């Protein structure tokens, strides 16, 4: 009991969610940082109030969800929900205690598995049902979140509008944050601003509410207030990586805005606040250099560009830094150094162009798609990064950069999901053959035995029924004796036989009226009287013994019944182990085969799209690198001239700088 209680004390702790990334995708633009950190935190808080785990299969779905195995999680949860809906008395089903949670989770799982069309159906059903205020409001919030992620902003606002009265503990801020983000998405920044002001300082939204307020103010045309707000967002203190990333973003965006406003020195302050290791690091280093260079402070520009130029050469910011750095040296009249760095840049660009050519050629040969589905690589969570470092895999050099494109990401995810489906279907297809073998083996084993077993069973069955009938009659007899004593029922076999013999003798004396007959009648009466006496005086003792024996018999009958039922079940199980599978297996085999065909077709189409997107992107990257290379070659020659001139003490008049073609 204690063990079970301990098991039941298990709580469903904070569900994983990837809605953070999804949120960011819904509204897009540099405007909003729509992460659902708050959702995760509040979910965890809310789970503390969920009932103890009552349904192991629901717990299993959660186990898969925590590992981001969305297919398995959905399959388990779908099955559990399906079974629950089919039972006559749902309140007796173990999922009953987690039903709302399960219906909410299934929507989250569907979203995470990128099944946006299906997501939200279960939650809508909750919303339409007769549920209490808190559950309804929770459902409305979750539905709004799904609409928001799908980019259905009006629907999201409508769902939020259905929230009235009490809301689940811990999500009040989340609701308002979502509302503000929806307003931002709908280009209603004034309303967003008002809401976001009330969320400043909310722990679960640390950094995000601050940043989004800055963006809302900016979109509302309140530029100065936006600057001040973004500066505040850029100072938020936290140890969490997402909060640190949004802090970097605040500083980066503010720096960018100040560059736009031609306040270069102030812009640098904010670029310099961006961490050296982080998602905005390269962009901030490059921008910081440009801000300094635009303010004619080339010495200062050299510092960030020198750092950046040494980083991953496939990154566009790094490539630009390789050209910008010698430009700064040139501006500083260090033409010899500039020439050396330009020369290195020419070589680096040449090498990158070769890589790009190799990548494009490799993609055209179909190697790119093969590389993407390498299972051993995908087990690593940083597989995209690792792919790039594989030796002799030109098809994947630029994968990380490609992954930044939304089209590419969508195509890639779909391709990977399709590959996963293909593997599953192929393995199921093999399973059917194993099922067939199994069924054949069972049939071959059982079928020859069953006729003999059945014959023996029928004989035993008739004997058993006879004994059961006898037992029933004895029980009836006991019941009748309890109502009216019937001593003769308790006579022994000897007494019954003696009584019958005495009755027969008495009958033979009927009509004989002699003294001898009278004496015999008297003796017969005495003897019968002896038996009757014994029956009557021993009645209670005999009844007690009879009852005991009947009880023992009942136990034996119970064992007999159990054995009988067990036999019938085993007999049925034997038959059911090979009968009745032909149709479902054949139907499933056809469905799997059809689905496999469709998946292969879709994979081919999706793969083609993926290759096209990749090649387009790589070609664009190549064109830019060619431009850089040309500029670097020209600047290299120019730098040599100037260096030579400088040595000959001829004053330098102009400097060459890279073209202003941005990435």
């Amino acid at each position, binding site marked *: 009991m204690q063990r079970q209680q*301990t098991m039941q004390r298990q709580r*469903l702790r904070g569900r994983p969610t990837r809605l953070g990334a999804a949120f960011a*995708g819904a509204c897009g633009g540099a405007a909003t940082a729509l992460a659902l950190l708050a959702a995760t935190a509040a979910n965890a808080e809310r789970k503390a109030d969920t009932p103890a785990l009552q349904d192991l299969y629901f717990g299993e779905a959660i186990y898969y969800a*925590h590992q981001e195995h969305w297919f398995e999680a959905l399959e388990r949860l779908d099955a559990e929900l399906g079974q629950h809906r089919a039972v006559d008395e749902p309140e007796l089903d173990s999922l009953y205690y987690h039903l709302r949670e399960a219906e909410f989770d299934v929507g989250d799982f569907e979203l995470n598995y990128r099944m946006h069309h299906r997501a939200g159906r279960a939650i809508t059903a909750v919303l339409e049902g007769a549920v209490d205020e808190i559950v309804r409001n929770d459902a409305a919030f979750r539905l709004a979140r799904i609409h928001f992620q799908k980019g259905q902003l009006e629907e999201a606002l409508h769902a939020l509008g259905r929230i009235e009265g009490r809301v689940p503990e811990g999500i009040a801020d989340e609701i308002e944050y979502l509302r503000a983000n929806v307003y931002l998405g709908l280009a209603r920044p004034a309303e967003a601003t008002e809401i976001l002001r009330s969320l400043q300082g909310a722990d679960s939204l640390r950094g995000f509410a601050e940043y989004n307020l800055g963006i809302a103010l900016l979109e509302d045309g309140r530029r100065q207030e936006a600057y001040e707000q973004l500066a505040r967002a850029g100072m938020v203190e936290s140890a969490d990586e997402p909060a640190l990333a949004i802090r970097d973003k605040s500083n980066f965006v503010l720096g960018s805005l100040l560059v736009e406003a031609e306040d270069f020195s102030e812009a640098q302050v904010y670029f310099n606040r961006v961490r050296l290791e982080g998602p905005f690091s390269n962009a901030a280093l490059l921008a910081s250099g440009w801000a300094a260079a635009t303010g004619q402070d080339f010495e200062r520009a050299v510092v960030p560009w020198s750092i950046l130029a040494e980083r991953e050469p496939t990154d566009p910011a790094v490539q*630009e830094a390789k050209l910008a750095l010698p430009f700064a040296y040139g501006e500083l009249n260090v033409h010899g150094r500039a020439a050396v760095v330009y020369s290195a840049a020419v070589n680096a660009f040449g090498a990158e162009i070769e890589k790009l050519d190799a990548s494009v050629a490799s993609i055209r040969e179909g190697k790119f798609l093969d590389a993407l589905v390498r299972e051993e690589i995908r087990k690593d969570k940083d597989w995209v990064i690792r792919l790039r470092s594989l030796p002799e895999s030109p098809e994947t050099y630029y994968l990380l950069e490609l992954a930044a494109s939304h089209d590419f990401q969508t195509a890639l995810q779909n391709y990977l999901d399709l590959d996963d489906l293909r593997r599953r279907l192929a393995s199921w297809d093999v399973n059917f053959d194993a099922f067939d073998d199994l069924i054949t083996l069972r049939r071959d084993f059982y079928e020859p035995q069953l006729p003999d077993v059945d014959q023996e069973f029928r004989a035993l069955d008739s004997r058993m029924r006879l004994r059961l009938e006898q037992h029933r009659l004895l029980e009836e007899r006991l019941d009748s004796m309890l109502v009216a004593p019937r001593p003769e029922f308790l006579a022994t076999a000897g007494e019954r036989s003696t009584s019958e013999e005495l009755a027969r003798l008495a009958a033979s004396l009927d009509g004989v009226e002699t003294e001898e007959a009278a004496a015999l009648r008297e003796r017969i009466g005495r003897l019968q009287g002896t038996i009757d006496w014994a029956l009557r005086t021993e009645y209670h003792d005999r009844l007690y013994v009879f009852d005991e024996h009947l009880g023992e018999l009942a136990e034996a009958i119970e064992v007999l019944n159990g054995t009988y039922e067990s036999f019938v079940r085993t007999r049925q199980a034997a038959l059911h182990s090979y009968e009745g*599978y032909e149709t479902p297996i054949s139907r499933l085999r056809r469905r799997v085969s059809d689905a496999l065909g469709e998946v292969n077709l879709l994979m081919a189409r999706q793969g083609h799209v993926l290759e096209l997107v990749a090649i387009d992107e790589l070609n664009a990257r190549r064109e830019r690198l060619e431009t850089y290379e040309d500029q670097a070659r020209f600047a290299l020659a120019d730098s040599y001239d100037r260096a030579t001139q400088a040595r000959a003490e001829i004053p330098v008049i102009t400097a060459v700088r890279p073209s202003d073609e941005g990435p």
Partner: protein
Amino acid sequence: MQRLTRAAALAILLAAGAGAQEPSTEEMQSLDEQVQEIKSDVLAIAAELTRLEERLLYPSNSQLAVFVSIAEGETFRLDAMRIDIDGELATHFIYGFKELEALQSGGVQRIYTGNVATGAHRIAVSVTGKTPGGNDFSHTDTFDFSKDIEPRLLGITLAGPTAIELGNW
């Protein structure tokens, strides 16, 4: 030149600005929808296949399923688990980081599904790992259970490095 330099800088900022997204092409959208549909189909097939497998391989009269969970708040590192039923190895499992985290977050792992005859049985659960203090531990507990004609679900809760509990479901 300043104007051009600023333009370059802004171009970088725009490129680097998070969330700048291109709209999907019609073909990609259509493909995306078809992928979603095939996912639905395959999930439905998986559900039917699971039911069939259960009926074929683990009929209810002999089905035994063993589930594992970790008690709330426990932070020991579970490295491996071994399950023996009636003295025979039923299964063993080596835990990676993700599986362990999923268990510590409240997930329940179905570690074994098999068949046993009706009647009395014995299950031995062995675990190895590291305590929160970094010491190695290895522990085995044995429990009796009975199986009748219904599917039998056993829930193993690890309430500590050496505290294994068995619940009936």
